[in-house]
């Protein structure tokens, strides 16, 4: 088990087992509420702190969970367990629809959508027939679990904190997996992940639905603990409070969620007693306090308060995970291609940005087992062409084929699936993941485990194989000593090499490298050249954008020169070096 899990798991299990025995009545109820809030907050940490998305509508999902079971158990007399299933199903469905509507748009549409939805559902709870209006629903039955009747707060104390322990275990399993790496990469933008074959839209949907389901679970527990529901605790204000909890506690850590839920609940109780004594009755002074507190928190401690505390806790030794076992059998590979077969062909490709023609009538061919170099002055349109070839941008006209398939209208994810893998001119690594984790993102498509198996960690065999493959590629590019270092801590030159290892992890036919040698020292450049030659011998096709002429001319089988978005010349390296038009372009009109 991971060491960082020990504190949150230990804490919740201790509260589950010892809380009911040791705490007085009032504190048991308080701890229960903190637990119910924590379940929602844990989902929000996954969504907001880790995934970079936000929802103000979690209280509405809690409400769906609570009202579903309330209606089914009182009006229809059905089992609370059926109520749980229906609540989760309904919530999942709504979250799925809401997510699909908003997640393709830029990041602020989801929170705005949840704001509107959170308000609507509050009015629905108050006005729909059979929901008891603003008065609510009474006499919700108790739950019994294998003959254990949960009739009072102490029983719920055990159940709630056992649920929290389970949730923490499941979420950390999820995060420590192939799916989890895709989720953790989300907030750094989806251009890179999509180019690595990750379906980022699906990852976003997964965390939104999981967060909603956790909220519904909390609602179900609430309904059977209180045995009464009304619309008030599911208002948009409560939805905002859930978000405040994780902002205050620390949006990116699971313990931050529990810490934030505790802090907000306890502080609110205390302020509601204290502030009216200072300012008089008839106000809602704790709202002013919390609003300002959150603003200050965002201004001075954007990561929340828990990271500030945990930085002061004593560190235990031996926290680093073990490197993967390299004896794991390798992943299956793509079938080999004949040498010098045409891999990529661009015909008459045009790209316009408004009035600017970045690429005009570009033709290009890349063969297997060859290194093709694309050179040209700054602003010649090389990176734009790269983005067209890899599907990051659609061309305005022209055709691009990979092997026998037309790819110019395909997404970068689909192109990656065909066997095209790329690096970026501006390095796109996930800075807070290790080199190993970053590189294994490249192998994303070579794993298949589903969400449930991942959360239960039943995919460890596949996971081991993926990590071993990543480790082999890291070894291959010569970064073995940095395997478990955080990628953001490496010098820029080495980060570029990490990108190459990540691209290789996809087992590609064609490698697109955007300025791989920039920032490398002489010996590192030689090593990179040797690596590319080895790849060529193995039959891989390589397309290279590069500024270092010595490096290119030494290595390339074929050189294409671009200027002003058009092809200026192409041919063998020594012919290009003597081409007067190319010399003019580089030296500025040598006549």
């Amino acid at each position, binding site marked *: 088990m991971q060491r960082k899990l020990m504190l949150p798991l230990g804490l919740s299990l201790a509260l589950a087992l010892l809380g009911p025995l040791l705490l007085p009545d009032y504190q048991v109820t308080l701890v229960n509420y903190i637990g119910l809030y924590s379940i929602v907050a844990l989902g929000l940490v996954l969504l*907001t702190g880790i995934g*970079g*998305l*936000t929802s*103000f509508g979690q209280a509405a999902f809690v409400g769906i969970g609570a009202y579903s079971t309330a209606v089914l158990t009182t009006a229809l007399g059905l089992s609370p367990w059926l109520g749980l299933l229906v609540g989760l199903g309904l919530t999942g469905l709504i979250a799925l629809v809401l997510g*699909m*509507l*908003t997640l*393709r*748009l*830029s*990041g*602020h*549409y989801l*929170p*705005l*959508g949840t*704001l*509107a*939805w959170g*308000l*609507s559902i509050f*009015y*629905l709870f*108050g*006005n729909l027939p059979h929901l008891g209006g603003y008065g609510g629903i009474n006499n919700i039955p108790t739950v019994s679990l294998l003959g254990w009747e949960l009739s009072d707060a102490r029983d719920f104390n055990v159940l709630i904190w056992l649920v929290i322990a389970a949730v923490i275990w499941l979420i950390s399993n999820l995060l420590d997996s192939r799916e989890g790496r895709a989720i953790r990469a989300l907030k*750094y*933008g*989806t*251009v890179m992940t999509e180019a690595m074959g990750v379906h980022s839209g699906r990852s976003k949907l997964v965390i939104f639905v999981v967060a909603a389901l956790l909220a519904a679970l909390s609602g179900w527990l609430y309904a059977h603990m209180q045995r009464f529901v009304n619309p008030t605790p599911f208002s*948009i*204000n409560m939805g*905002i409070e859930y*978000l*405040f909890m994780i*902002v205050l506690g620390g949006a990116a850590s699971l313990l931050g969620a529990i810490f934030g839920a505790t802090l907000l609940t306890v502080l609110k109780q205390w302020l509601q007693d204290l502030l009216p004594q200072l*300012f008089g009755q*008839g*106000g*809602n*002074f*704790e*709202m*002013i*306090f*919390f*609003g*300002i507190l*959150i*603003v200050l928190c*965002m*201004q001075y401690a*954007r990561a929340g308060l828990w990271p500030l505390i945990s930085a002061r806790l004593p560190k235990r030794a031996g926290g680093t995970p073990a490197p993967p076992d390299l004896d794991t059998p390798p992943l299956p590979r793509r079938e080999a291609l004949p040498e010098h077969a045409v891999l990529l062909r661009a015909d008459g490709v045009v790209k316009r940005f408004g009035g600017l023609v970045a690429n005009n009538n570009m033709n290009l061919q890349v063969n297997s087992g060859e290194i093709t170099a694309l050179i040209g002055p700054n602003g010649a349109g090389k990176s734009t062409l790269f983005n067209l070839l890899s599907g*990051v*941008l659609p061309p305005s006209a022209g055709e691009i084929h990979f092997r026998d398939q037309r790819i110019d209208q395909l997404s970068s994810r689909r192109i990656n699936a065909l066997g095209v893998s790329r690096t970026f001119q*501006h390095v796109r690594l996930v800075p807070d993941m290790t080199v190993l984790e970053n590189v294994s993102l490249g192998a994303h498509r070579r794993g298949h485990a589903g969400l449930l198996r991942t959360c239960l960690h039943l995919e460890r065999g596949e996971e081991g194989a993926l990590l071993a493959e990543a480790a082999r590629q890291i070894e291959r590019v010569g970064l073995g000593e940095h395997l478990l270092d955080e990628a953001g801590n490496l010098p820029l030159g080495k980060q570029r090499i990490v990108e190459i290892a990540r691209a290789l992890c996809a087992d590609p036919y064609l490698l697109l490298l955007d300025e791989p040698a920039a920032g490398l020292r002489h010996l590192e450049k030689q090593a990179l050249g040797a690596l590319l030659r080895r790849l060529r011998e193995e039959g891989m096709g390589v397309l290279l954008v590069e500024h270092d002429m010595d490096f290119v001319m030494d290595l390339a089988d074929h050189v294409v020169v671009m200027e002003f978005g058009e092809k200026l010349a192409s041919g063998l390296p020594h012919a290009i070096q003597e081409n007067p038009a190319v010399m003019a372009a580089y030296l500025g009109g040598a006549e």
Partner: protein
Amino acid sequence: MDWYVFTFLTQDGLTTGAIYALIALALVLVFAVTRVILVGQGDFVTLSALTLATLQAGKTPATVWLLLGGASLVCVKMLAAAAREGRLAQAPRILLMQMTLPCVLALVCWLVEPATLPGALKVLLSIVIIAPLGPVLYRLVYQPVAQASVLQLLIISVAIHIAVIGISLWIFGAEGFRTLPFTSGNLDLGEVSISLQSVLVIGIALALIVALYLFFGHTLYGKALRATAFNQRGAQLVGVPTDLAGSHAFLLAAIIGAVSGILIGPITTLYYDSGFLITLKGFVAAIIGGMASYPLAAAGAFLVGLLESFASFWVSAYKEVIVFTLVLPVLLWLSLTTHHVEEEQH
């Protein structure tokens, strides 16, 4: 539904729609220039309406002390920054620039018996008290985190909105207010009777919209603001002071909010927390405009107003639900039509 009800509802819908259009424009403006989704936009509306109502009741509005307090905090921050950078010689200038208006307003409110002021002056005073709250808000809350992500700025917006309605409850109490109508006349056009109040509201709203259009399309400063919206760093490089742009966007938003408050005050009973629903309906309109297009946002606002008006006639209890559910098909349409490419992150 008979003809009379129909014209009444249409009129009502167009009138509130005009207000939502103003709110939507302010939201789009602030978002474009600063990337802030200003949840508190509706709070400017309620604060100005409630300030006017307090003046009309012959009492001193506490919002003037709010302004004085906020401006003092801004001053303290600016003085502290000046001291850190060894520019203390600028202290008198900072004090003069930041404190003159709030102090004058506080003196006016303190010395003059509100009941003796003529009606138009009360309106003017309300607007002048609320408008500077915009820049104060920007400097205190948003400027220190101008580089934060849209999401973080949104969380801040929600937090400050929560604080503002807390303050609003404190100073105005929980009961609702309605300000005096500007006019009670009616314009009779055969079978249709149009209230002059509605005509006035729609007229002023349209005039403001046209003024904004002219400002952004045809003045150098308006164009500079738009440039900031398009590319902040680029604008900075060609000499547009982007902090000032943010402050001015908030000033415009606060003025629009304050005027909207004066316009809506006589039509609707406003409570300390009514601003939230007003903002959200402005959002629905702005989302219809894709958070970018001014004319589409304005058209969306009239749609929202009409929908709300007719919904409140047929299914009163569900009118908010219907308005907010309108967001869903719009989002569907947006998500099917926009090809969202994220900006390069450096």
